[in-house]
């Protein structure tokens, strides 16, 4: 099977800080790849590096065989890669419809309408608050708007950064369900960074455990889930 991502000795950081110290892994097509790890281990930084939002200090990123290491974010976006940031992922002063419209900025009107219908079919909950400003929405509703903003681009690969952080369990389940369906029904490749490790590992294909910028585990998700030391490793209690 072809690999969507081929990451080779990637180092990522901000300014003078190096946070990811050379990681090598790959993500297969139509895979749900889960990245877990304690707080501050660099999961979010890694995703930002993959999308071009953090500075690459070394190594290489191949996306569908193309070297994207130096590409700016919107160019990566054109290649079908989508990124769902943890924070500030919507425009608060715009309505939901305007947010989604912006995400599909370069589509013509008919195409946008067509895609919007598809997205609303996938996330029907949004229909109820299309005309409201995002700042009046709850955390879960905002995450769904951000989700929709990515779906309007009809990407082939979506990277989520803690999409369920600070959500109620019910809302988190809903988001997890949609993420799973991206893979099963739409055949997308998903990279999921999650703090809710149990849930994520249960539905993931393969998983990576990141501790202070280095890989501590890479393999089947189920295996990590049943690993007896997961709790202590995940909390960062083991070096």
């Amino acid at each position, binding site marked *: 099977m072809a690999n969507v991502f081929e990451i080779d000795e990637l180092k990522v950081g901000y300014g003078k800080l190096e946070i990811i110290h050379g990681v090598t892994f790959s993500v297969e097509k139509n895979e749900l790849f889960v990245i877990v790890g304690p707080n501050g281990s660099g999961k979010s930084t890694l995703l930002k590096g993959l*999308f071009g*939002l953090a500075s690459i200090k070394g190594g290489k990123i191949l996306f569908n065989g193309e070297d994207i290491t130096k590409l700016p*974010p*919107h160019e990566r*976006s*054109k290649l079908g890669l989508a*990124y769902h*940031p943890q924070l*500030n*992922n*919507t*425009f*608060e*002063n*715009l309505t939901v419809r*305007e947010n989604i*419209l*912006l*995400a599909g*900025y*370069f589509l013509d009107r008919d195409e946008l309408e067509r895609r919007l219908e598809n997205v609303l079919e996938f996330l029907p909950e949004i229909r109820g608050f299309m005309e409201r*400003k995002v*700042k*009046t929405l709850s955390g879960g509703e905002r995450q769904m708007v951000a989700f929709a*903003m990515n779906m309007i681009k009809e990407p082939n690969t979506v990277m989520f950064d803690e999409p369920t952080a600070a959500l109620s369990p019910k809302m988190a389940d809903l988001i997890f369900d949609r993420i799973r369906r991206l893979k099963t029904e739409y055949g997308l490749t998903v990279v999921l960074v999650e703090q809710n490790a149990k849930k994520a590992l249960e539905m993931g294909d393969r998983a990576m455990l990141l501790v202070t910028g280095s890989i501590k585990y890479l393999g089947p998700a189920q295996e990590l889930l049943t690993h007896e030391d997961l709790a202590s490793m995940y909390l960062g209690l083991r070096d």
Partner: protein
Amino acid sequence: MMLDTNILLDALVYSNMLALLSLSLTLTIMTLKVANFAHGDLAIIGVYGAYTFLILAHVATYLTLPIAFLFGGLYALLNYVLVYSPMRRRGANFVMLMIASMAIDIATRSMLQMYADVLKLNFKVYSRAFIFNDVVFNIAGTRVRGLVLISTLSVVSLLAILYVLLMKTKFGVAMRAAIENPALAEVLGINVEKVYATSWFLAGGFAGVAGFFLPFRIPTSPDLGFIILLPIFAASILGGINSLSGAVIGGYIVGVSEILGTYLLSQPPINLSTAYRPAIPFAILILTLLLLPQGIASLWSRGE
């Protein structure tokens, strides 16, 4: 103390101008995140553009209004593209941007002074302290001064255009998005620089239109842009400095208070010289800073 209609109409005209100026200043502050101390000069660039065209073409004065828009807009665009944008890319902090706007103010005013000299030399016209002659329209039997009519129409139509642009077009949505969260807008593939440059063009155009009305009221010279800076800022800060609707309302409050206040204070028994007129916007500015530093916009946006 009688207020005759002329004073009220003058207050309306002046407030129309001020509303356009503080609105456009606010628009530039929203993109640059810092106050532009050369904003008043954009109005003067606009009016000199229109005046030049008048000298060359001898058309009806009001027909040169679009020229004022164009000159103000293009000059603002140049400011943004040649100075502010590159400075910010090089990591200038906002105090440096503020100082740059002061330098632009000096350069612009002295450029206008040189231009006024050239104009006088080549066309033998008044190039400083010039005025525009107004026309009177007869509408359904009522005589209305052109200035009152056209300035009000301009404000109403420009506000409507801006509203439609910002709220109803894709580009306007992108503009609001780029102002709120440039990083996210960039990720979505919106050319934030282009959006900001457009905002500057519009802001400069609005200021140019406001400037066009100046010579109908008072003799206009290159330095007038600096003199009107205080009321513009008072209006924008009163409006909340980051609120377009606040800026418009602030413009009317400052404009009306300034005209009526100056008139009333110059009457017996106070008989104060009208030269102290800037004290009124100054007092509004100080009171706003002391009592309501977030401006009047904070009064209605707090609930959201």
